[in-house]
């Protein structure tokens, strides 16, 4: 093999590696993080409509215990889900740190009550770990992917599953 050819090949490999690195480091999305208990969870920013405190919740009969009722978000009636009880954790009294995150997927809005919103972090390809089964808890089916960040693992929730897969599928009107 010609030395020139070898050289070119080496150069090509270098370029490839560089590209791959860039790809790993390019920002994919942003995730809003929050606590539910001690664990940090996240929801991708495009699904988040707004964050409010816990407004007065109107109790509606005949719905599962984890749906706390309905609230009025700027003249829109939105159901709220308590994430602690949705994930089978012990319920806690709401404080002024408790937040309701209004999320939307395909025109359906839902409020999720979380312990505390932390902030927004950028997500790179290299942070994403695709092995949700290593968390052996019952919030498994709502996890889209894991984020391995320097300050710990964050679980990013799958909003579509959260909204459309309660325990049954949403009946289309």
């Amino acid at each position, binding site marked *: 093999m010609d030395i020139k050819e070898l050289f070119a090949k080496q150069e090509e490999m270098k370029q490839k590696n560089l590209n791959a690195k860039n790809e790993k480091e390019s920002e994919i999305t942003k995730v809003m993080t929050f606590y539910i208990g001690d664990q940090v969870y996240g929801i991708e920013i495009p699904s988040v409509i707004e964050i409010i405190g816990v407004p007065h919740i109107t109790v509606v009969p005949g719905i599962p215990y984890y749906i706390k009722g*309905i609230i009025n978000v700027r*003249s829109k009636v939105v159901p709220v889900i308590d994430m602690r009880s949705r994930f089978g954790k012990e319920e806690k009294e709401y404080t002024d740190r408790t937040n309701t995150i209004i999320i939307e997927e395909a025109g*359906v809005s839902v409020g999720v009550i979380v312990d505390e919103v932390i902030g927004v972090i950028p997500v790179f390809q290299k942070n994403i770990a695709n092995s949700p089964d290593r968390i052996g808890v019952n919030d498994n089916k709502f996890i889209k992917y894991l984020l391995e960040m320097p300050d710990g693992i964050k679980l990013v929730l799958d909003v579509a599953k959260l909204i459309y897969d309660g325990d049954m599928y949403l009946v289309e009107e």
Partner: protein
Amino acid sequence: MAKVEPGMEAMVDVYIFETTALLEQLDEILLRTEKANEFTEEDINEIFRIMHTVKGSSAMMGFENLQVLAHKGEDMFFIIRENPEKMTDVGFVYDLVFQMSDLFKAEIDMIQNDDDYEPTDFSDMLAKLEKGAKMLKGELDGINEAESASAAAPAADDTASAAAAAAPDCTTVRVFFEDGCKMENIRAFMLINNVKESVDDVEIVSYIPEDIESNQDSANVIIDNGFILSFRAPDVKAVLSAIESSLNVESYEVIDANAQKAEEAEQAAAEAAPIQQETAAAGSPAAPSAPAPAAPKPAEKPKAESKAPAASSGGGKQSLISVNLQKLDQLHDIVGEIITTESMVISNPELEGLRLESFTKSARELRKLTADLQDTVMSIRMVPLTGPFQKMNRIVRDMKVKLNKDVELVIEGDTTEVDKSIVDNLNDPLMHLVRNCMDHGIENTAEQRIAAGKPAKGTIKLSAMSSSGEVIITISDDGQGIDTEKVIAKAERNGLLMKPASEYSEREIQNMILLPGFSTNDVVTEYSGRGVGMDVVKSNLSKMGGSLTVESKKGEGTAFIIKIPLTLAIVDGMEIMVGDAEFTVPISVIKESFIVKRDQILNDTKRGEMIMIRGVCYPMLRLNEKFGLYSEVNDIEDGIVLLIESENRGICLFADKLIGEQQVVVKPFPKYLSQYDIKGQGLSGCTIMGDGSISLIIDVNNLIGSH
């Protein structure tokens, strides 16, 4: 909707809308003329115009079967139109045309609703119509044999002079239509009409082929040889320009020397469109052997669209536009939100205690305007009951013939306005009830009526009136009334009795006919007697929040009384508190509210608490227990009791306190919750109150049902 070419969906919508309107108009005219037993010239022209428009637009949309059907109908009226004074007995025409219009409506319904729509074969009806046309012609034959040869062709007296090109002051033109525009014979006919309409004093001398109206094959002749038209007019140029501007005309040439002058004048105009003359000179355009592709070219769309509305408005100005109902709903929602937001701003707690004179003034102004806005938006959705009421004319007319009963339909108060969504759902219930009156109510023979001291002609009255947020529609007949003995016997046979027959009151018995599986007519007829219907009517009405009751006197007649709310979107409600939750109870179901003493309560081990009011025992439902709410008010003497009644069932609700009466905008529960049965819990929706809190609206029927 039926599959059409991409981009044509909107056109199909317009087509369906217009054709339906035209057919309704047709029915109306037919009913009127049949009653008056005479066709005025205006009526005939109107019918003819309707048929013609329907035919034209069906052809444009490529619904060939409909177009042929309309064509045959048109043929028939053509004969009538040409010889109006000779029409003595045209009774059979009505039946034929009504049948045709029904087929049309059914077909259009299919086009609208069937995804895989297949054109229906109308050959039966076509044959009938053809026969009808022949009968009409035959009638004419006796009177005027000379015309029989081509009764369908206008100006038929001039058959011999078809070659009138040679006539001295005549102008003859040869017209070619656009390639593949289909229905060349119809286009030719429209061309003639267009010329007649747009130019005064024009006399159509003749045209070749002559049988464009009756012969489908003439289309091919026109494709091959062009359409040759001879006319006589003082202003030849005007006629030529009318021809030029007619729909789908590709080119024309003047083939008569006498019109040379006009042609010269035309030359100037023709320079603007040189292609026309060229094509004409090149001879006949290449003709498609079979009549045509399935859909018209997109280029024709604007023409078709602009033409049809102009035709349907009959030249008069239209001050109406059609709006998508969804947009109205949206508007309605937004207005509801504005009103809620407004009270949030105006009664904001942060403003409390401040002296805000100009703010208060502006706020008052705003409140007045938003109230006006709300009223206007509400009134947009309100439509008169005229539509569904007028449709009943047709049903009475048809059944009159079939059942051989002489009945008159009297309509009163059809201008009463109701929410659009309610009007749309009223057709079926009304139809069932009117049929019921026709079939069961009115006596079978005139002799029976006369024997009972009643006029031979029966009367069915359809009346509407609005009273305090409700519309009351009454369908009554002066027939035989409900035979309570027969009813109870039948109910017993069908196992519908819940207690001994002797314990039923007259009213209860009468209302039995509304039960599922009940029909007193021993013979099942085309119209009723299958025992479905009345209960369906009742359930349809209760879906709309309405009710149905029967009042009847044996020998004097029966009345069905429908009560429906004016609108579904706004409810007059009573606000009540249970714990810290607010509920809205529709005022229409509240009979009374009162405070009870402990000793008025009866305790039944099986059915829980009961209360006796004026001799009737009502179950007591504590709302806090029912909805699992915490409330400090548990002593029956501290709270308030509401007696509510719906569909003749009553229940007492126990709440903490009354807040007051309020009009609320009904909102459905969020979509996410539709997987759970909230309605079954006795809640129909929710509403946002002025202070931003949410109040749940109680659905009384379900609440009583679930108890």
